[in-house]
């Protein structure tokens, strides 16, 4: 595997320097986390959702690299004012596009951001025991990927403990 420099584009750099919608939201309707600090990659989303299932406000916090920060930030911009069903359709590819493209080694940042968003949406309905035809039992690609990364972190942690 080669070790390429990371030519972040201006949009990623701008969102890194001046992230939009940064910070904890005290009156969030739903909060979701994806990733694990062991992987150096973790995102928290805070969503304020109204009775019409519209996302009124979204904010984030991120423990991660510049791409992680930028993708989390852009997701909060993209989903503002969206109905949850519409937000559910966002894919990691559209997030990568929205930040002007990502270096391939940073695709997983976009995946993790969308994973956190979908978790939040799933959690919102689950807490209210509401089922939606568009919200399948089976986890979406991004949710699966986030879970996989977290499982991997746990495995590594376990392995480290047994080695010590």
């Amino acid at each position, binding site marked *: *595997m080669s*070790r*390429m*420099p990371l*030519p*972040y*584009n*201006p949009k990623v*750099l701008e969102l*890194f*320097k001046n*992230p939009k919608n*940064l*910070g*904890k939201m005290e009156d969030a309707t739903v909060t979701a*986390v994806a990733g*694990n*600090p*062991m*992987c*150096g*990659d*973790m*995102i*928290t989303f805070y969503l304020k959702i109204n009775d019409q299932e519209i996302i009124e406000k979204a904010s984030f*916090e*991120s*423990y*991660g*690299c*510049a791409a*992680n*920060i930028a993708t989390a930030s852009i997701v909060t911009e993209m989903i503002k004012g969206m109905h949850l069903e519409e937000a559910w359709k966002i894919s990691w590819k559209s997030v990568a596009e929205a930040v002007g493209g990502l270096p391939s*080694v940073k695709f997983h940042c976009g995946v993790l951001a969308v994973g956190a968003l979908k978790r939040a949406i799933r959690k919102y309905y689950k807490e209210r025991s509401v089922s939606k035809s568009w919200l399948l039992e089976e986890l979406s690609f991004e949710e699966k990927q986030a879970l996989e990364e977290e499982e*991997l*972190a746990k495995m*590594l*942690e376990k392995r*480290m403990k047994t080695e*010590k």
Partner: protein
Amino acid sequence: MENVKELLKAHEGLKREVYLDIENSSMVPQEIVEAMLPYFNQKAYGNPTLTHKLGWEAFETIMEMAQKIAANLGCKTLEEVNFTPGETEANNLAILGTASAQKNKGKKIIVSEIEPLSVMHVAEMLQKNGFSLFKIPVNNEGFVNLEKLEAAVDKETILVSTSAVNHEIGTIQPIREALEIVKDKNPETVFHSDASDAYGKIPFNVKSLGLDLATISSYKILGPRGIGALYVNEGVNVEKILEGQIGTQKLWPGVENTPSIVGFAKASELAFEDFEKNLNHMRKLRDMLIEGATSKISDVKLNGPQDDKRASDNANLSFLGCEGEALTIELSLNGVYVSSGSACTRRVLQPSHVLVAIGRKFEEAHGSILMKVTRYHTDEDIQYVLEVFPKAVERIRGITGSTKVE
């Protein structure tokens, strides 16, 4: 490429710039560049093995430079200095060349857990090819466990490799003690040490240490990149690992890089000139950096030992709740250039194996920053770094917010 241009534009108008990423590449001081320049096109640009004036000039130059480096290393003869294209190549030559020369004596290789990848990966490759590999554990300051080393050496052991100074955390290993332990158990075991972070940075003498093989690197002492050397003690058998036209360097085929060899020798000369004074200067700046960062910023951990147990130039700190790649970018935008042991900057999932080996948690390793000072840095440089650092850490921690493991 367009993106890179934009990234560079974002750095315009910096009031000061301080480069501390000597681990990964270095600036070459003007006096070294000037020493090299005549050798590109004014003299000694011939092939040193050929029978004409420019060839003989090259031969004379290379021998003279090897003699200078030999003197700085404490070698008996210049034949013991074998130039290679760098530290990576010298380490590959040491490990593979020994394995190949000694394979009939045994198949066991021992390296420390915190070796640079040019030792570690090569040893792991040999393991896949039928050699047995034992990695000696280290304690939380990075010192090799000598008891485990003693227990591991047997009559099958052909090679032990442990760095004189760790490249990431600056631990000065008790090399002499380790070597005696190894030789007591098996006098035929070849002892190699990557001394790239020791040469010119701590008192280091291959003969008084009794080393069989030692790697040194030019850029680590501010010489040009693309040149290094493997010291091979007289009588130690190492086989070359590349084939081709052999010239003056019996262990490395190809045309000698005379200008770089000159630069390497000049860098050595400068590193050893006023050696004690340089060392004290670097130690002062190192401690300013470590003490300044730990007093101005909360939740900072020093990685590696302190004071005299640590290399004069090395500062490695973990900033908790702060992902390293994000921090290196933030620091860069403010003119401070450093590297991180974070998995993100390394493009692999796992962070620095050195930090993991000394018992740092992954999230501590992800927040690590490695800095090396040189004799050219000033108090003002370090003051500037200490001015930028707290703000950078604060901003990245602000993004992290409550996103951390409770």
